[in-house]
């Protein structure tokens, strides 16, 4: 009986401590995963989830504590050893080689004698992928696969190595709703066969529908264990963020005004053979509304943002702002007309990491009287910067701190604030709350809504469907550089949006036309 009990517990972590200079990432964490259990690991960015995974997968060594695997205390020296033990991991950023085929990628992580016979390997890949409902062609190059298909390669690669604990880091953040459904079916099959799954996520509804148990981390410690199906999402959210942070934004209904921007027939051909080209994008925006663009990363979001900001010059089509075609204008000229841009990368494109917040303000706000006759008015620059910090609740030591020293959430608040204070007529924001803590995300959402109510038009490009549904009054999706029709959020079912994200929308347009 005793033997039976220990065998049922696949992984047990006891008092794991991992310290980095200036930060105790894991501060005495206990975690138990049973055989065949789907166990959620929840927490905000910086709560210590990734560090804990790295400890389990052997990427880093804990400073204190014990890892018990199938009843034996072990030291996991490196990922190769973890894999031999039966631990497989799918990182958020896939570790696949784009210029190799599916089979070659899988062969690389197998022992040489198993990988030698290529046709046998192909057969095994086909067997595993069919058994778990993950269709894959072993001969295709990774570069030709969609993100969802790439994730299948990663999972199949783990399964071929007879994994008994599969760690998935934010696996659904890159998938369409339909792909999520099929992934969950696969995971449930695996769990029935006895494979344990550690599911890292911050999407609470998904966790509630999939996972048997959940461990919630906050600031490096376990803040609670729960059965997610039995408590509400807001109770779990409380465990994640603590008592004093607001966890959601109340969004009032938008009152769209007159049309502001009209994009028609926008096309742009990518020079990179694996890049995404924009194809016949049509889009209209009214004053005082937020329009959302959903889509899986890499389907033209970045290209669309660049075409609107003027960083790339479209090959076809027009972008009209209040009836004036701004397609031929340079980014700074567009900015003068009231176009503000918040790009996806905060560090490097939104802000210069090594420059102070004040100097970063100057980058886009120089038109606000901060420069006169070619000379920088540094007093006004500091004043402007302090104003942003004060009004948008940026936590920092002052306008002289470097952009790189701020947390993601605080820097994003600063960047949004910098744009908002310039009273833009149009704001294009890409993934504004990606990797941002809940508190900052709420603050950012509130700033966007406030800007909207002041009459600005906002185009919100995001992968976070909850965010899009919450903030936008019209939604569409990008797939392979084509934009779906835009539909009012209240009438757009998530299933429909999922189909649009997967590129199925010519037919719907026709259907509408017929009806």
């Amino acid at each position, binding site marked *: 009986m005793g033997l039976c009990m220990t065998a049922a517990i696949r992984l047990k972590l006891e008092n794991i401590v991992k310290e980095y200079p200036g930060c105790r990432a894991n501060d005495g964490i206990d975690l138990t995963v049973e055989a065949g259990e789907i166990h959620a690991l929840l927490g905000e960015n910086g709560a210590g989830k990734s560090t804990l995974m790295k400890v389990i997968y052997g*990427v880093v060594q804990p400073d204190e504590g014990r890892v018990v695997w199938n009843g034996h205390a072990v030291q996991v020296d*490196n*990922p*190769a050893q973890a*894999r031999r033990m039966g631990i497989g991991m799918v*990182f958020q950023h*896939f*570790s*696949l*080689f*784009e*210029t*190799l085929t599916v089979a*070659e990628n899988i*062969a*690389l*992580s197998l022992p*040489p004698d198993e*990988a*030698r016979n290529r046709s046998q390997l192909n057969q095994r890949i086909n067997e595993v992928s069919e058994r778990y409902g993950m269709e894959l062609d072993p001969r295709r*190059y990774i*570069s030709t696969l969609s993100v969802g298909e790439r994730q299948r390669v990663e999972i199949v690669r783990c399964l071929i190595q007879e994994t008994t604990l599969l760690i998935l880091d934010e696996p659904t953040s890159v998938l369409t709703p339909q792909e999520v459904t099929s992934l969950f079916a696969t995971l449930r099959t695996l769990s029935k066969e006895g494979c344990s799954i550690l599911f890292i996520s911050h999407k609470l509804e998904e966790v509630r529908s999939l996972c048997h148990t959940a461990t919630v981390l906050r600031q490096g410690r376990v803040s609670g264990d729960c059965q997610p199906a039995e408590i509400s999402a807001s109770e779990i959210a409380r465990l994640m963020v603590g008592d004093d942070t607001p966890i959601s934004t109340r969004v009032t209904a938008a009152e769209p005004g007159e049309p502001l921007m009209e994009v028609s027939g926008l096309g742009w051909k990518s020079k*990179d*053979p*694996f890049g995404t080209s924009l194809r016949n994008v049509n889009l209209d925006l009214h004053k005082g509304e937020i329009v959302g663009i959903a889509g899986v990363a890499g389907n033209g979001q970045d290209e669309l943002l660049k075409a609107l900001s003027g960083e790339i010059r479209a090959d076809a089509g027009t972008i009209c702002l209040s009836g004036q075609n701004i397609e031929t204008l340079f980014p700074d000229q567009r900015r003068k007309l009231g176009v503000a841009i918040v790009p996806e990368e905060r560090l490097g494109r939104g802000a210069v990491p090594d420059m102070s917040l004040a100097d970063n303000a100057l980058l886009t706000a120089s038109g606000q009287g901060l420069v006169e006759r070619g000379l920088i008015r540094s007093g006004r620059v500091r004043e402007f910067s302090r104003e942003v910090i004060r009004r948008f609740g940026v936590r920092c030591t002052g306008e002289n701190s470097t952009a790189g020293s701020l947390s993601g959430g605080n820097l994003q608040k600063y960047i949004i604030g910098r744009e908002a204070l310039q009273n833009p007529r149009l704001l294009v924001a890409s993934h504004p709350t990606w990797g941002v803590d809940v508190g900052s995300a709420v603050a950012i959402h509130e700033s966007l809504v406030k800007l909207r109510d002041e009459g600005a038009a906002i185009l919100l490009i995001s992968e976070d469907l909850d965010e899009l549904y919450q903030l936008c009054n019209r939604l569409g999706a990008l797939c392979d550089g084509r934009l779906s029709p835009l539909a009012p959020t209240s009438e757009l079912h998530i299933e429909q949006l999922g189909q649009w994200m997967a590129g199925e929308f010519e037919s719907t347009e026709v259907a509408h036309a017929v009806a």
Partner: protein
Amino acid sequence: MELLTNVLAATVVAGTPLLLVALGELICERSGVLNLGQEGMMLMGAVAGFAAALSSGSLLVGVVAAVMAGIAMSLLFAFMAVTLAANQYAAGLALTIFGTGLSAFLGAGFVGSSIDGFSRVAIPLLSDIPVLGRVFFNQDALVYTSFIAFAVVALFLRNSRGGLLLRAIGEDPEAANANGLKVLLVRYLAVAFGGGMAGLAGAYLSLAYTPLWTENMTAGRGWIALALVVFATWRPERLILGAYLFGAASILHLVLQGLGWKSSTELLAMLPYVVTILMLVLLSWNPVRTRLNTPLSLGQPYRPGS
């Protein structure tokens, strides 16, 4: 016909040092390491090979010494560029400057000496094939070595697990590390192979092509090889074409001068460089093929776990 056969045979001879050094650099770059020290390693190979052959009386000892010298130089580079993750461009340039100076210093006493270099060995039967037999199979042992090296490199890249490892690491060392591949070891081996081949190319110059030692006798072939690898889009079959094209163009300018072509010798001497690069630029038009063969991490230092 006689003239054509002679010109083609001379083409192969002139292309061989380039082929040897470029094959080594191709493997090195496929692992993601750009070694600009080719010129320095070749010169060290040339002087070491010549000195060893002269003092021992054996050409084989000379070749071994040249290869060892090339490897030693490349390990110096690997220590800086791979272990210490220093800037590869700077480390490579330093290696070339160092090798140029050191080879001149070590070789000062050998200037003016001469040895009997490698002589031609006709391969029975094969050398009787009209034209091609004389061109390819009536050459010296090092030329045959270059044929073998080409075949080995091409097969290695295409069909072996080692080649797969090399390509994977050159594309994305972080992902390779996450997959448990030994990035640093593979890069060391690739750099050392590049060094050995550069040493061999040096030996070809000082033991076969012109069996003597003069300062700076590589005359920029290391740099041409570097360009060749890029324009060949990291594919061995294009590399061999490019190397022989360069050989042909450099012979052509001698032939043209011999025939009393009235033109500036400086312009004619430019010919091989211009022809080779133009030809390879024309060949590398297909962006997808190019992208599939380009080592993405080329030139970027990699520190595991950072």
